[in-house]
């Protein structure tokens, strides 16, 4: 992805209109993160310090049993700890439970056994609204099927999480423009999702996932519906989020080559962790 510049942060809004991602992604998003949101100033630019803090996510003996005529145990007493700033991939064959695990990590689904802790807080003890707020403030999702709102323009799709959070309109505009510029989608700001290619949709989804400055990005087969060129582009964006911003990224993928680019690979089989491998430079095994 040679299109990404690595120089000083661009000021203003230089990239809008050319459609090519020619910015320093890390700097632009770092600016975005420093924007005041509801009076709090969040500084994400201390990955080394954050690595020493308590785990971002901790799954303790988590199980998920789908009841019905033929009960199905999708997850079987899984325990994982995800530290802040980690780049993790979850791999496994279809039906192994990796997407279910991702949903648990994203608090989109609740376990039938065990407990999920986000920054030390037990999710099961939170109210419905508190869990919603947790998702809003902490987690950004990138889905295989993009999940862009079909009725909203590219701009409005990226603006949506900010709107949900109650960010003032002017600040929203600023953040959306920066994020769209960062993924090279400024010139498509007023297009509907139906007018975008798969790769473009996923870039918009990444811009949206970043809107509320999450601590964690969960990507469920983000390149599953893309051609190889778009896949490479999208993955480059996601990997840079980790490298430049130190955001924790958890990636569910079938693609072993892609998984190899991450620091830690959790292999799932029949709802259980088969292996949990860290690259040497990334730290110890937790499995």
């Amino acid at each position: 992805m040679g299109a990404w510049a690595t120089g000083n942060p661009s000021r203003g809004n230089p990239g809008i209109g050319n459609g090519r991602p020619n910015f320093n992604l890390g700097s632009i998003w770092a600016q975005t993160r420093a924007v005041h949101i509801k009076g709090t100033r969040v500084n994400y630019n201390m990955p080394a310090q954050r690595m020493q803090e308590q785990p971002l996510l901790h799954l303790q003996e988590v199980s998920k049993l789908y009841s019905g005529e033929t009960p199905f145990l999708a997850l079987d007493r899984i325990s994982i700890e995800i530290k802040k700033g980690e780049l993790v991939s979850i791999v496994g064959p279809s039906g192994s439970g990796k997407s279910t695990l991702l949903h648990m990590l994203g608090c989109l689904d609740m376990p039938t056994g065990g407990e999920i802790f986000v920054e030390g807080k037990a999710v099961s003890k939170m109210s419905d609204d508190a869990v919603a707020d947790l998702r809003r403030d902490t987690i950004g999702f990138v889905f295989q099927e993009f999940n862009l709102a079909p009725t909203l323009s590219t701009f409005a799709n990226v603006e949506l999480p900010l709107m949900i959070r109650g960010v003032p309109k002017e600040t929203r505009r600023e953040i959306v423009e920066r994020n769209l510029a960062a993924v090279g989608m400024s010139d498509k700001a007023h297009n509907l999702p139906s007018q975008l290619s798969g790769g473009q949709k996923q870039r918009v989804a990444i811009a949206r996932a970043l809107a509320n400055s999450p601590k964690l990005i969960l990507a469920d087969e983000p390149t599953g519906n893309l051609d190889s060129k778009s896949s490479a582009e999208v993955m480059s964006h996601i990997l840079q989020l980790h490298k430049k911003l130190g955001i924790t990224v958890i990636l569910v993928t079938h693609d072993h080559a892609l998984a190899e680019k991450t620091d830690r690979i959790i292999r799932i089989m029949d709802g259980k962790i088969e292996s949990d491998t860290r690259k040497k430079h990334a730290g110890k095994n937790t499995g």
Partner: protein
Amino acid sequence: MKNSELAELAFNSLRYRSLRSWLAILGIVIGVASIISLISISVGINDSIQKNLGGLGANVVTISPGGLRADRFVVGGGGQFGAPTATEGKITFREADQLRSIAGVSRLDARVQGNARVNYRNKNTSISIIGTEPSAFPLSAANTILYGRSLGIGDLSSAVLGYSVATSTFNESMLNKQIKINNVPFRVVGVLNQSGSSFSATDRSIFISQKAAEKLFSQNQYVSSIVVVAADGSNPDTVAAGITQKLLSLHRVSVEKQDFTVTTATTLQSTISSVTNTLAIFLGGIASISLIVGGIGVANAMFTSVLEQTKYIGLLKSLGTRRGTVMKLFLFEACMVGLVGGVIGVALSFAVSGVLGGFGLPTRITPELILLGIGFSIIIGAVSGILPARNAASVPPVEALRYE
């Protein structure tokens, strides 16, 4: 999320599914337009009745023999209700005389009346003849003389024609012409002004003196009706109450067995209002059915909308939208359907009322009716939207995201 932003999102969603949205809106439009149009008819009828009542005379009290029953509410002569009927109860001339001394009674007209054959040249027709006391006439008919003169005390063979009798029935200058009533000759000495009230039989009657009528109808014991003109500054309802008490004591009957009817403009108005209100409720009730059907249409459209947008709901939830906000979003959508349907429905009702007016039906759309129409349609939208909105809010995010 601000309400204005939710409204914007809801509007966006409605616009995206425009055909289905318009079909749902159409249901509300038809409901609201039919409710307002039909109620506007009863408002128009009420207006027309009230306008006609104005011609009856606000200070006139009418006493008729027989208790008031809805099925004998008949238009009587001289501009008042309550003509004699087959029901029990009679009032004598002697009793009528005793009412003259009641406080607030300015003039009292004890009448004898009936239908008679009237001949003039080659015309022979049946007309209502009212024998009136010349001292009270034409005040007791809440009218004035258009031309000629009123009846004199000793006028036993003079007649005053109602406006329609003079202009329509005979259709020529009748002053000083001789007419025959049941073959008794009378000379026309005057013509009354138009009363302007379709309730009043004044325009369609011939007035002769009470004494002449007694002879004509061989009736010298019982009155057909009594018309009392209340004195200036006195309340006709108070005068009516005094008359009622007096007659009850003269007839030695209780209120429950009252054998006469006392009517004032106020009692008449309230009776008529209750009739027109019943009409409004009846017509509104019929039209409500269409609005309820429209509401079911909105509910159906909302359920479809929720189903169609299940994945979007999942997305909203994954982005951290609270359950209440999702519910509010869909309620906004339903209320918007109601609001737009209400506004268009009101506009359509003006057109429908205009068409009905063209067919001669009196209609009037009041500001209250407009507010009622729009308010009701928003409520219908909201009520129809509650269940789908609750469904939308309760979908677990992961299931919603998986929905195909």
